[in-house]
């Protein structure tokens, strides 16, 4: 997969090294979120509008619709931010997002499509609907003038968008999908996803504190598990001081740490973590 930024570069959004625009489009579409994203690259600006599991509009200074989408997707480096353009009055994108990516991204091949299908399946149990959603909903620290205290790969904007979103037309859930998913989604107050090197991949909600806690928690859990001779970590869950925290392995290369409302039913998250 082509990377949005192959080499870290200082940007207004904290240097999103390695973040993929294709990933962004895929996650936004799979999460079904309604979001307007500003993509900035070498002085150029593009706006992508997502709604109901689709890319519905794209605009650059000169182009609109499919042409603008191809133009933006073709940018090799850049940053993501929240777009402040008004929501489009009509949908200008005619191609499904997968087709757009397949046509626009040479690396978006069979492997990527297979990966997408896996993400679709997992989306119904948790992922893109809660923390996985690289569809973080708090303004980026950099954008708000604060420097992130943890390495940041990619942060995504929001500001004006609903914190908890659920696809209006979600893909059919697998038979094992927990019925309490909606409750779990609503229960998550903030979340952070880390990669193996403890870089933040995505944030949800006001999760800067959580982003600082997560690496230390990850290490402490690993050390305790190690001395107990335990292998194949699944999840850590705890309550303290009225907080309900959960940390679990999300993929082979990422973990999620989240805080839920006290007493929230996280069965859906537990179920997802066991897959």
């Amino acid at each position, binding site marked *: 997969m082509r990377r949005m930024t192959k080499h870290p570069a200082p940007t207004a959004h904290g240097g999103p090294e390695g973040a993929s625009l294709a990933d962004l489009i895929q996650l936004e579409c799979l999460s079904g979120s309604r979001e307007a994203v500003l993509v900035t690259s070498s002085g150029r600006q593009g706006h992508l509008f997502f709604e109901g599991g689709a890319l519905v509009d794209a605009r650059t200074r000169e182009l609109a619709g499919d042409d603008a989408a191809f133009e933006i997707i073709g940018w090799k480096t850049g940053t993501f931010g929240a777009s402040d353009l008004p929501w489009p009055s009509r949908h200008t994108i005619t191609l499904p997002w997968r087709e757009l990516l397949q046509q626009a991204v040479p690396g978006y091949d069979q492997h990527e499509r297979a990966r997408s299908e896996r993400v679709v399946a997992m989306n119904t149990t948790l992922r893109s609907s809660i923390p996985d959603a690289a569809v973080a909903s708090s303004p980026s620290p950099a954008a708000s003038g604060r420097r992130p205290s943890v390495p940041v790969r990619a942060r995504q904007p929001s500001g004006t968008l609903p914190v908890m979103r659920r696809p209006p037309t979600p893909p059919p859930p697998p038979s094992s999908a927990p019925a309490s998913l909606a409750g779990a989604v609503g229960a998550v107050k903030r979340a952070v996803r880390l990669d193996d090197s403890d870089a933040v991949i995505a944030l949800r909600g006001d999760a800067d504190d959580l982003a600082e806690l997560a690496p*230390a*928690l990850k290490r402490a*859990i690993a050390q*305790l598990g190690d*001395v*107990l001779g335990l*292998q194949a970590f699944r999840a*850590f869950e705890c*309550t*303290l001081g009225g907080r309900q925290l959960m940390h679990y392995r999300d993929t082979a290369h990422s973990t999620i740490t989240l805080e839920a409302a006290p007493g929230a039913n996280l069965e859906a998250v537990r179920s997802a973590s066991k897959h």
Partner: protein
Amino acid sequence: MGNGWSKFKGLFWQPAEDDDDEDDDTNGPGDSDSEVAEALSALKDLDGVVGSIAIDASGSVRASDLPRVFDTASIELIGSRMVELRSVLAKDAREPLSGSLDFEGHSFHVKSFPLGMVGVLIDDNAHKPALSMALNLVSRRVAATLETARQGGEV
């Protein structure tokens, strides 16, 4: 839960004013550890419990009921790791923490109180609601024992 239930009934912590046998004053150093060990042993009555450990606030092991595959050094290290986990999560050690680490095949449940922590290693056969209840009771008992020892100058 079988025969273990009667044992757990004894783990309900009685208020101090009900403890009129004055045993507290006659406890010598180390007695509290044997009481803690006794409390831990009750956990073994639950199916799926592999072993348990109780530590004080500094991470020193007060009693352990873990299998012999865990040598003394390992058990001490487990105590240290438990404290580290708690300190990562809560700057104030008095803040009660209740948590579980879930691994394939086994999980480790911890419960903290101001003067220490109890950890229980279980396998997948354990009935978690029963374990949770038992851990609450055992932790309460251990906390009371450590508090008594502290007041007696033992801790």
